[in-house]
């Protein structure tokens, strides 16, 4: 079945929805960003974000298009464990709660996760970390851009490249206009849209197909999806847990929020977000199990969610999926654009190219960095190189290698820089080896294990004292 032929929405209706939400996001971006004159206001929303907006932004950012589209994909490929494994991505948010509190206490003037690695482990470790973090950030950006194009193509038949370009352009525009304040403000509205949207979709799917019919058809046609002893799926569960922890521990998307939240907010916001995020992959994913009952021919696994919704619920369902995934996409794309641009601005531009740049110069440069990142992501999205899940799994080996250097570096005075560097390099290399030799479902697992062994062994063999006060570098 050609994806264009399966489109349920008229292209003009698709453009109409896209235009309406785009105008809203861009106007809000301008409205919230118009008073952000200082660098702190623009980059970290003034460092006084409260609990409601803090919780919503953590939830919305973690509910990406990869959740709303890859959760059904994983349910379709790995069944029950696919959904539950994806849910364990919330463990990363929950475990980051105490880290967020400590990060805010140790680095009240900090800007990026790169700041921490530089101050804690030195410049060589900092550059290794930047390579990992920027590679991952770009990979995530590409997967989000691709998801936008795939969604629009699947639902409206609009050309993949055109849809992807429009979504990227809108997110770049409102992020440029409003900085982190626009990102966090729109995240709150997008969270509500996503939650109500997936609830309605799930309810309508249950009403139309029902659990018994769904279970019966899957048992007959794809019984492995209901098997709790599916080995690859069990490995995926642990792999995804570590992938999520690694992603959140290292990525500046989460660190920038830890810096931006008001004192005392970080712990509660990340904990609440983690608890509320946990059931979302199940709610968003289980509708894929209706595909066998409906006799759907799914041309690509990452289109199963939109196809089931459109088939079950007609035009209304397709509109709802469109709004939910567009909100999920925008909420993550804007966060990633803002946080990655902070990393490029603070750690590359200021850290390597212009150490004496004034806050005014950095404030101006921040906008151009967001635009530049958007252009790079757009160029890399054009060829639609791989599937969403494959791209994310590949980066698992990279991010999981950073879990131990970061966690030990935040709590363990004696962790030494050489061990942290070796953990990141060897964890990534051996994790990638496992990815190619065994399968995607063990890459993060192997990487985290290698990284853990190196950090523990090197700290035990060559302990080194560290003065926590040296993390409190004066802000920009």
């Amino acid at each position, binding site marked *: 079945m050609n994806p264009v032929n399966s489109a349920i929405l008229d292209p003009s209706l698709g453009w109409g929805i896209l235009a309406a939400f785009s105008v809203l996001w861009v106007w809000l971006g301008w409205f919230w960003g118009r008073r952000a004159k200082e660098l702190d206001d623009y980059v970290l*929303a*003034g460092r*006084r*974000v*409260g*609990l*409601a*907006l803090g*919780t*919503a932004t953590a*939830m919305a950012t973690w509910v990406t298009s990869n959740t709303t589209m890859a959760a059904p994909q994983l349910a379709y490929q790995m069944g*029950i464990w696919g959904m*539950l494994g994806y849910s364990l991505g919330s463990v990363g948010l929950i475990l980051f709660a105490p880290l967020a509190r400590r990060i805010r206490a140790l680095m009240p003037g900090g800007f990026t996760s790169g700041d921490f690695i530089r101050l804690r482990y030195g410049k060589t470790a900092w550059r290794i970390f930047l390579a990992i973090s920027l590679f991952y950030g770009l990979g995530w950006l590409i997967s989000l851009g691709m998801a936008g194009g795939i969604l629009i193509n699947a639902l409206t038949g609009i050309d993949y490249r055109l849809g992807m370009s429009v979504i990227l352009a809108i997110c770049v525009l409102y992020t440029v206009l409003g900085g982190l*304040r626009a990102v*966090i403000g729109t995240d*709150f509205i997008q*969270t*509500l849209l996503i*939650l*109500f949207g*997936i*609830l309605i979709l*799930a*309810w309508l799917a*249950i009403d139309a197909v029902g*659990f*018994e019919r*769904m*279970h*019966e058809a899957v*048992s007959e046609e794809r*019984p492995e999806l*209901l*098997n*709790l*002893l599916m080995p690859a799926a069990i490995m995926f569960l642990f792999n995804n847990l570590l992938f999520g922890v690694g992603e959140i521990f290292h990525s500046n998307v989460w660190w920038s929020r830890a810096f931006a939240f*008001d004192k005392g907010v970080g712990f509660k916001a990340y904990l*609440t977000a983690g*608890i*509320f995020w*946990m*059931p*979302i992959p*199940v*709610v968003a994913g*289980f509708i894929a*199990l209706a595909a066998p009952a409906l006799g759907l021919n799914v041309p690509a696994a990452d289109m199963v969610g939109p196809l089931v919704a459109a088939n079950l619920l007609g035009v209304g369902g397709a509109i709802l999926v469109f709004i939910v995934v567009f909100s999920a996409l925008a909420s993550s794309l804007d966060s990633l654009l803002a946080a990655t641009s902070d990393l490029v601005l603070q750690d590359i531009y200021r850290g390597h190219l212009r150490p004496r740049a004034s806050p005014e110069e950095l404030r101006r440069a921040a906008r151009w960095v967001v635009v530049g990142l958007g252009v790079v992501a757009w160029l890399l999205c054009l060829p639609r190189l791989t599937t969403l899940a494959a791209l994310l799994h590949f980066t698992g080996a990279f991010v999981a290698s950073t879990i131990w250097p970061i966690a030990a570096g935040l709590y363990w005075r004696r962790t030494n820089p050489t061990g942290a560097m070796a953990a990141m390099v060897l964890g990534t290399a051996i994790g990638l080896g496992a990815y190619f030799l065994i399968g995607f479902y063990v890459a993060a697992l192997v990487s985290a294990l290698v990284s853990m062994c190196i950090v523990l062994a090197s700290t035990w063999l060559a302990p080194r004292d560290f003065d926590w006060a040296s993390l409190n570098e004066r802000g920009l």
Partner: protein
Amino acid sequence: MTVSVSFLTTMVTIALAVTLVSPFVLLILWLRDWRKGKLW
């Protein structure tokens, strides 16, 4: 070991219940922060 229809129903129902509560909790938190002038 294949999951039963009741397991599937229970798992999805619990997930739906938590997801249903979350937007209302967020709205209550927003109101509380807004009243105290602590939105951001």
